[in-house]
């Protein structure tokens, strides 16, 4: 979302910023280029590390790992946890920890399944109620953290327990599932979470086309002064064709589109909206400012209380969506359905701070980080490692991501 190469201050090699500036003063050209190369290496370090892992998997497992359908299935199965990661990252940007996301998701799963099966509500009404509930959960967190100034960990840990408790009371402690011969969940609802429910390819292609057109338009407007318009347009055209070739031949774009499930499409849509909101609106800037230094934000006139509240509300709503997807995928609700997602969600969010080495939380970085994380784990599992190792992997990645980002970006930095 940050277009500029913000290398959030590595004290070790800080010349990056000083020299990479478009007009960075008396910087020798050679120096600038060295610095640039150095930065690309550092920035890509995490991505390169993942690529090496995947390459190793490829050599080891071959088609068992490099299989578009299987890889997308892995992503599909992780959509609820990735949505929770998005919920978490929005609050993290505002400088808050929301530990209640899994509680909200669990509650949402129970209600989206149970209201239809047990109470006989129309599914659409249940979904709407759950979304409203997610917003209300966010408001409750905000009330505690912003209004009553309860420490954010304690407040959201408490509300997490509260929501889990409500789910348990609602279900009587057990699980809610479709009884044999009883009321069924409607087909459209089950489609959301099923891998067989594919997003219409024409829709995906249209979105891709629009994105390419918009991107091209932006690129054309950014012509460097050195180049004449026809040359620049030609270069852009070549770039588009090359990108298309890579996408099709290497990334198997058409196969990806054919296998794109509704759940994954939903994830991408939510990420896209959050990316625009966080990176390209006044609200998003205020959100970052509040997270970076709330006193300074307040002094510049940012309504920090409102901004923080909005962050919690967005987090609650996105968690509710995660719960709905989970309910739809399982066709039932169990008390511990979402509990194990907290760690991978935070891991993905923190991974975003090192992935593009911008040193800050990043919406697309979170999605990509989460997806990489899943693939690393799934590769091991398809290689014969027991799936119980998954949390060990997640934990290790979370810790190393945070350790890397703090050593690189904060060393000696004034606090």
């Amino acid at each position, binding site marked *: 979302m940050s*277009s500029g190469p913000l290398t959030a201050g590595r004290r070790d090699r800080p010349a990056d910023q000083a020299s990479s*500036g478009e007009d960075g003063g008396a910087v020798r050209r050679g120096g600038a280029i060295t610095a640039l190369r150095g930065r690309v290496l550092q920035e890509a370090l995490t991505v390169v590390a993942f690529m090496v892992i995947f390459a190793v998997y490829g050599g080891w497992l071959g088609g068992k790992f490099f299989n578009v359908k299987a890889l997308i299935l892995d992503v599909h199965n992780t959509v609820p946890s990735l949505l929770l990661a998005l919920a978490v990252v929005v609050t993290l940007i505002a400088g808050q920890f929301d530990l209640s996301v899994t509680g909200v998701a669990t509650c949402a799963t129970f209600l989206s399944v149970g209201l239809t099966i047990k109470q006989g509500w129309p599914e659409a009404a249940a979904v709407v109620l759950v979304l409203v509930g997610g917003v209300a959960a966010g408001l409750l967190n905000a009330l505690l953290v912003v209004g009553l100034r309860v420490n954010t960990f304690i407040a959201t840990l408490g509300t997490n327990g509260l929501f889990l408790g409500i789910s348990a009371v609602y279900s009587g402690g057990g699980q809610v599932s479709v009884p044999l011969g009883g009321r069924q969940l409607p087909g459209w609802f089950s489609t959301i979470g099923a891998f067989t429910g594919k997003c219409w390819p024409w829709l995906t292609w249209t979105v891709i086309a629009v994105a390419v057109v918009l991107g091209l338009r932006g690129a054309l407007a950014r012509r460097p002064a050195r180049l004449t318009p026809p040359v620049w347009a030609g270069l852009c055209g070549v770039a588009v064709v090359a990108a298309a070739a890579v996408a099709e031949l290497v990334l198997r774009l058409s196969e990806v589109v054919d296998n794109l499930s509704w759940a994954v499409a939903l994830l991408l849509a939510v990420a896209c909206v959050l990316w625009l909101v966080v990176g390209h*609106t006044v609200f998003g800037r205020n959100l970052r400012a509040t997270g970076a*230094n709330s006193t300074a934000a307040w002094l510049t*006139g940012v309504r920090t209380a409102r901004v923080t509240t909005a962050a919690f509300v967005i987090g609650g709503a996105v968690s509710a969506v995660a719960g709905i997807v989970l309910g739809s995928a399982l066709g039932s609700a169990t008390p511990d359905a979402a509990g194990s997602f907290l760690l991978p969600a935070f891991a993905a969010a923190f991974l975003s701070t090192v992935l593009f080495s911008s040193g800050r939380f990043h919406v697309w970085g979170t999605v990509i980080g989460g997806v990489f994380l899943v693939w690393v784990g799934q590769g091991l599992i398809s290689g014969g490692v027991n799936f119980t190792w998954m949390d060990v992997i997640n934990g290790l990645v979370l810790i190393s991501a945070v350790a890397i980002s703090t050593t690189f970006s904060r060393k000696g930095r004034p606090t």
Partner: protein
Amino acid sequence: MCMARVDRSVHKRGRATSPQIPPEEHRLAGSAGAPLPEARPIDIVSLHKRFGSVSVLRGIDLQLRAGEVVGLMGPNGAGKSTLLKTLSGLYSPDGGQILLGGEPVRSLGDRPEVAFIHQDLGLIDEMSITDNLRLAQRPSYRVWPLLDHQSEDRLARRALQFVGLALRPSTKVGELSPAEKTLVAIARAFARGASTLFVDEATSTLATSSARRVIEVLRSLARAGAIVVLITHKLSEILEAADRVVVLLDGQIVTDDPAAGLDREALVAKMRSVDSRHAPRDDGAGDGPGAELVRFEQVRSQRCGPVTLTVRAGEAVGLTGTPGSGLHDIGLMAAGLVAPVAGKVHRAPGVRCGLVPPHRETQGGFNDLQVRENMSISALPQWRNRIGLLDGRRESRHVAGIAARLSVTPRSPSAPFWVLSGGNKQKAIFGRLLLQQPDVFVLCEPTRGVDVATRAEIYSLITQLRRDGRGVLVLSSDAEDLLAVCDRIATVGSGPVEEPEPVGALSTGQLEGIL
């Protein structure tokens, strides 16, 4: 036990040194142990520091000898703070040597006899003054590991007295004004018994009078055999305190002369800059004061008041005061961020206020955000396009324009804010207001830590704003600011503050009082 020994040794020294300071206060300067030993000479040989490909220090050669106050000057971004941070070991040098008493050392930071007071002070806001002082010293124990709070409190109380602060030692540092924090940081260095003191713009937050007191103390320390290196942008302080003047320009020492032969003009010439005092002051231009924008009616804050004050369009009103007088509370109330304890702040309908907060390190900037984001934060709505998304290119263009006008370096708008030098941070925050274009500019310490040339630039910008029909409220502990740009001025003290008087109507006596 231990305490008694300390006290005795210190008494001896207290008598030996400068008579202006009562012995009670002097006890503190050596409270950590033996009487101030003669500082060992420090030689800096060809010191280099680069950040990536940018050379910030390019071969610094400097000899420091006991008994000297060295004034270190240079424009913003010259590398003064970097020099100190390299000496203190916060950065590792890329070349050159540091010799302490003739022996090469890796850094001076881990020597108890050398103290550094950085621009960002290094105090911990969440801890009390006593705890902050203890961090610098060997703790005194009742029975190990239980701390002797009484003696620590006593020490802290003396340390505070020494710098003229009437505060409880249990006060949290976070509750102090920037100026009070600076004084605590100085007290801490003294309490530790340092014989060499590097001070980075510690006086820039202080009112002229308290700065003078601090400088007197620094001088008497030097007479007693200490080395004091003082970074400041205030020429008057250099002329008053320094025995030797060192000017840094682009990471190199361009001047290293005894202060005796220098006067103001010569100094300015050395810095190759313009002197603010002699910058033409054009009053009269513009239409004079217009509509009333902000009016204070018997307004009280926690610390000051009642204040009566009017800011009209097209005029600059200035207030000055000592630290702790609540000067900056007036700014927060004028900007509508804090509600007064009593009285009322009237703001004309639709009037927008913009604020430069007094303390840029903690209240001004977003260290982890880009310079561009820091500057544009108050002005964002103007760059929204039809569908409410920000037009990043227009934003960057505007920001770059203002940054160039204020000569914020490094130029790269995507650099994180924290790499900026102190003065450049101040410029960026001032630029934020120029982008926002509010009707009333509330400027707390607008020239704190900026170099002579930028000070002149800021003064001319304020004059320009006034001429454009904006209201300007300057709240500065540096009386020079008020005299340079304000139409009407007043002093904030313990009593009520009356409507500021026109500068021309003040008698010389009144003016001297303010200065």
